[in-house]
């Protein structure tokens, strides 16, 4: 952007072009930090309430999604073939309200941080521990 602006300035002898270019770069940077660059992603699993996925951007903005436990069918590790390699990602399977055996939606997790398989396996094991508890209903009361 700055190269083009300098070229324009050399042509038009108007210093406003340079300051406009600086302004545009600053605005672009702010937009990038606020909407595009994700600093950290976290997953909170509460056995009886649900699963909460948070991503926090570099500018401090946080975007959260909460999925109730009733809608969650399972948490699995999926494989995908991307260009020349195979990548693994963790995802939540949501239940179809009409068809109890079917899956209505797949929510991928950790899209920006893309942790590797060993990391994903640990997270997967902890998730499964909690999810198993909810499928055994209490006998008392």
């Amino acid at each position, binding site marked *: 952007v700055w190269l083009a602006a300098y070229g324009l300035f050399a042509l038009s002898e108007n210093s406003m072009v340079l300051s406009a270019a600086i302004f545009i770069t600053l605005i672009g940077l702010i937009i990038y930090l606020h909407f595009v660059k994700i600093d950290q992603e976290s997953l909170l699993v509460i056995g009886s*309430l649900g699963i909460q996925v948070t991503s926090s951007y570099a500018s401090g903005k946080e975007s959260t999604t909460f999925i109730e436990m009733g809608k969650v069918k399972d948490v699995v590790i999926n494989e995908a073939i991307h260009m020349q390699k195979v990548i693994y990602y963790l995802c939540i399977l949501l239940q179809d309200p009409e068809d109890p055996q079917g899956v209505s939606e797949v929510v991928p997790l950790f899209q920006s941080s893309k942790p590797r398989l060993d990391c994903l396996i640990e997270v997967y094991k902890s998730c499964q521990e909690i999810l198993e508890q909810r499928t055994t209903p209490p006998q008392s009361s």
Partner: protein
Amino acid sequence: MVLKVFFPSCCSSADSGVVIGRWLSEQSSAVVLAVLHFPFIPLQVKHYLGELQRATKVKVSVLGSWSNSKQEKEERLSEFLEDLGTIFCHEPWIQISKEGDSKFWSCSTLQKNSNNPKEEEIILVYYDQRKVMLSHLHPPLHTADGRAEDASRLSAIFDTVARSRVLFLTDRYDEGPIRLTHWQSEGVEASILVELLKQASVPACLLLTGLLSLLSGICRSRVLKFWPLSFLWSKLSTCEQLGHRLQHLQVVSSNRKAQTQTQLMRKANIFVSLLIDVALGMLLMSWLYRKNRIGHLADTLIPVADHVAEELQDLLQWLMGAPAGLKMNRALDQVLGRFFLYHIHLWISYIHLMSPFIEMILWYVGLSACLGLTVALCILSDIIALLTFHIYCFYVYGARLYCLKIYGLSSLWRLFRGKKWNVLRERVDSCSYDLDQLFIGTLLFTILLFLLPTTALYYLVFTLLRLLVVIVQGLIHLLVDLIDSLPLYSLILRLCRPYRLAAGVKFRVLEQQDGKPLRLLMQINPLSYGAVVQTYRLPTYSCYPRDSWASLCKKLFLGELIYPWKHKGEKQD
């Protein structure tokens, strides 16, 4: 199953008492609505709860006990609280106690008829009562007044708090047998302005409804339905816009209270949109009339029209010569060129005839901008259409000529090859022609073929001009649509009170201590701006491109007349 207690954060510092709320057994969660303080008579409490249940249709009951002891733990109080469990017999009886100023509370449950008494895990979730009461979950579930068995947990909780508004109307200054603590117990919130507006709005609505019915009666009368007038009304976009706004006014001024959330938001959106529209229109009007700009505008209008006509004449002269080095058929060129030149001459004299009245007309037309900015924009679009009417005429002439030529050419080309179009079977069949038919056909074909570049050029030039005008008009209409359909009230609500439009909730884990229940803070996750606009968009008579690019190009090639913007009828919702 894990027991979840939803505790309002406003009751954290309340005195000891019993907690009342709703117990959702299928989710094993307790929604605490208020704390009832000592002293109370259990019979009166049950009576009060029965009344409340009838009023709100929410199954409110005494859920447990709450003890807030400023000093050390009092043994007698805890026994007393346990005895209360027998009086109010709720299964399970929840006991929450807070010591001093500690943040960590201890929670326990008492189960009487349980086969295997075990320590149940309890999760404490704090929520802001006022915000949850006022917020609406999206997407809204269509539940009737009865219980929805498959309602999600969160909507059940929101529903409970929202329907218990009656409970929150008693504050601590009320002289009753019951002393409650909830978010409004310091004093019921009300605002004088809102009350005054509510009182004033009823007669205003009646008046407005009366006026509007009169107006719509006049509009629909038979006088205006005769053929030339109705054709005119349908062509002018201003009338459509005015009709649209009239309908909006009718919706806003109707006397029935809005039943559901969506209806309320729609009414509010229409009202705010109308207000902003009229305000912007007044602003525009004041700017126009400030320094007699209307006079200046009218003065510059005639020279601009003249200038446009002169440019067109120059263009035609250029076409009549050798445009872009192409050699035209001299005779046809002159004919077409002279025809169009005469047309322009007529147009110019018409404009000059009108010129003394232009200023007055513009002045009165400008007054109608006070009806709203959208009306002013529509008038602008109509004025542009009227001023460029001659371009439209030229386009129609050129297109018809070109179309005829293309059809003739295609049919004669078939004759050239010995084929014919079979109308019955809609396909091309071979046919044997007589010699003189073939001779004349070939002659005509050659003539048309060599005259093609001339007509094609004229057609191209006028089509481009017409497309330019159409694009400008389309942009104006898009702007009008934007102003019409933007849900401003919802956007402002999302900006200032984001908890009212909720897409969901978010939980935050608070500090933990071993042995104490898990503490979570439940906050409302507001809807994103894009979702707000999508949910609450106002329906408009929007105009969008009728044809796809491919069919547009095909029509242009064949010379069919194009009307690229299609106006939908009123959307029925």
